[in-house]
């Protein structure tokens, strides 16, 4: 049976085939657990692998040696997304690292610095949004320990707010807008990506 180490050491083109094999083996298991691993591959390409379960509500853990583990509840059909680092994402990752160094009082008054969970959520958000939407986006802290992602999208704009447990967003252009406030989950990010595809 393939293991996580096997998945993360093969070339990208083989990862999907290996994942399918794993899903076939675990799909009938009760309370199956999913994991995502983040490893550097040969050539320096960074691959983030997310697995979503179709077996109801499960607890998933993201195994990452750079960020704290996060528990995610997924209720979606199986979906696999491979995300590669881009210039925009590298820039936003760097910006996120800067926000992580903020102290309370960054606004000159009693603003709270972004919480560790918020930073983790923001990183996940950056990883999962399609590169093409992030070229003109930036990150800002909010005074209540949250983080904004704000930017321009073609002839529209995007605004996302994340905190420890929640994500709210507004995507709009001249044709209209969509907005939502959802628990911060993979499902929520998928909805956001669908909204971006629809409005941009």
């Amino acid at each position, binding site marked *: 049976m393939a293991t996580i180490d096997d998945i993360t050491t093969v070339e990208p083109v083989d990862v999907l085939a290996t994942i399918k094999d794993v899903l076939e083996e675990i799909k009938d298991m009760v309370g199956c657990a999913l994991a995502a691993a983040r490893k550097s591959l040969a050539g320096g390409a960074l691959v983030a692998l997310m697995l979503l379960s179709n077996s109801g509500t499960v607890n998933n853990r993201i195994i990452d040696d750079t960020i704290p583990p996060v528990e995610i509840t997924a209720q979606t059909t199986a979906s696999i997304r491979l995300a590669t680092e881009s210039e925009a994402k590298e820039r936003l990752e760097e910006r996120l690292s800067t926000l992580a160094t903020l102290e309370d009082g960054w606004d*000159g*008054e*009693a603003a709270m610095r972004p919480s560790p969970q918020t930073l983790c959520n923001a990183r996940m958000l950056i990883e999962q949004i399609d590169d093409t939407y992030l070229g003109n986006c930036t990150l*800002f*802290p909010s005074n209540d320990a949250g983080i904004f992602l*704000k930017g321009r999208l073609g002839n529209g704009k995007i605004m996302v707010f994340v905190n420890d447990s929640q994500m709210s967003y507004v995507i*709009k252009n001249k044709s209209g807008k969509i907005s*939502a*406030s959802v628990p911060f989950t993979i499902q929520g990010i998928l909805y956001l990506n669908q909204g971006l595809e629809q409005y941009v």
Partner: protein
Amino acid sequence: MSKAPYISECKKIDSEGIPVSDKETLIRLLCSPQYYNEDMNIVNPDAFDLRILNSGDYECFVSLGRVNGFQSQDDVDWYLSSMGYKIWDDKCDSENHYYGYGTFECGDAREVHNMIEIHPLTGSKSHIGLFYRHPDGGFYSGPLPKSDPEILEMLSDLSDLLDVKKAPTRKS
């Protein structure tokens, strides 16, 4: 819309003060480097949020400068240069220090959302207050509930109004 702490009334509103016309130019000081991305010309929506002050008090209005309340452009420049350094002298080294300000017309802000109210303030001719009317009556007090998409959009649209300028060089 979400509910958050509010006050039933604000005694700082000067009901007999000079009304703020829609055409009046207002100034929002960007007193932290975290309020503005200079490279991308994007303003942090937090620039229009209500803060918790070091005193523990919750702001019930966003303080805006009133260009008409200054005698001359020199007075405006002095105000901008002195305010920025006053806040950041002890907290940031000069290399990381950034402050600027943005201007916009009062009417444009009022059009963003019907919960926005702009009133003159008691004891001040140079500043006015931007208030957020609470659904239960009164005004919001302290940080707005940004998990509410309607409020998120409002703060974003307000911050997009700003025509940002670098504050003038500090005068000794």
